[in-house]
């Protein structure tokens, strides 16, 4: 792990609060991004990301240095986001097996076969569709997909963060990817 972060963590453990600002600065983008993709709105994402950092600070003594610090932070942020998702609206998520036919026709209408996904994504509507498709995933698929694609984490890291066997992580990513394909594969 980065020497700088290691040293900052030591200072925080000794009670030096200002050292924590460097840690927040270092990981804020990724944690915020994670929360945003999990929750789907900026305000909640900011709130959750802030809470994640505060929890990390309060529980810094429970951090085990054999684990990657970023993985530990991701774990906190992921658990928090899942908690919030559950509190928010427990029945709005569609099962991966069920895909809205309305959505499909709408997607297909807008689809422009000649453009690459990168170009197509420049359109705001498409950005929203991708986000909506992620939000439609049930939480266990959403979590792995967000971790894998938002920060390009390895299967091993995701397995560490979620404390799940790699096989389970793989299966969830596959199912999540199939579910997303149903919404986005036709574009």
């Amino acid at each position, binding site marked *: 792990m980065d020497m700088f972060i290691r040293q900052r963590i030591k200072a925080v453990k000794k*009670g030096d609060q200002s050292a924590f600002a460097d840690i927040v600065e270092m990981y*804020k*983008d990724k944690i915020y991004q994670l929360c945003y993709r999990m929750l789907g709105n*900026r305000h909640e994402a*900011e709130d959750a*990301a802030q809470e994640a950092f*505060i929890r990390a600070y309060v529980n810094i003594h429970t951090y085990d240095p054999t684990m990657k610090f970023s993985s530990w932070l991701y774990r906190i942020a992921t658990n928090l986001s899942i908690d919030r998702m559950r509190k928010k609206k427990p029945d709005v998520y569609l099962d991966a097996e069920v895909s809205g036919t309305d959505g499909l026709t709408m997607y297909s209408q807008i689809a422009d076969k000649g453009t690459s*996904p990168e170009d197509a994504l420049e359109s705001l509507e498409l950005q929203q569709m991708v986000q909506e498709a992620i939000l439609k995933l049930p939480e266990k698929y959403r979590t792995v997909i967000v971790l894998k694609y938002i920060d390009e984490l390895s299967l091993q890291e995701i397995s560490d963060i979620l404390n799940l066997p790699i096989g389970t992580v793989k299966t969830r990513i*596959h199912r999540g990817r199939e579910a997303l394909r149903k919404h986005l594969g036709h574009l």
Partner: protein
Amino acid sequence: MPCSEKIVQWMHDYLDGDIQKEEEQRLRNHIQQCEACREHFYALEKTVAFVENVSHFTPPDDFVKKVMYNLPREKRRVRWKRWFTHHPFLTAASLFLLLSTSSLWAVWQEDNEFSFSKQEHLIVQNHTVIVPEGKIVEGDIVVRNGDIKIEGEVHGDVTVINGHKYLAAAGEVTGQIEEVNEVFDWIWYNVKRVGYNIAKTLTK
């Protein structure tokens, strides 16, 4: 629909970057021949590209500040320690001030004996220094723990520490006349004296 579960499994293994060479080759061969599987695979690849390229949002500018503001208060000891290490000069200065005031305080407390600067013509009666009528005392007079009665003339400053000054109608002081009765006055008096001495050595 793709042909088999196994083929789809390989597609995902491929997308995870976790596929055996041999299986990858078999997947490629199959996709070239089978349109349904090819479409499925492209749809998956496209989906991944969409999700990977979704734009990144950054948290608001005051994010770090807000987090720091909402943290529980840190230990006081650490805050002081950090302040000291970040402000070495102020630390040294305040330490100096603390030591010098406390030593002055000690002097103030201990120094209860009556004393005065010895000069010609001065008369002493029961802890009172008298400048007799018609006499001229050259130079500054300092009286500690006693009073001064000025009936004659003083060519210089008069300072009374822990005592009172009595200026008779005929008495005259050419310089400043000052009573120092409180510890803060006393400190101020010392500080001024140090400053005055520094100024004097500098101008020499």
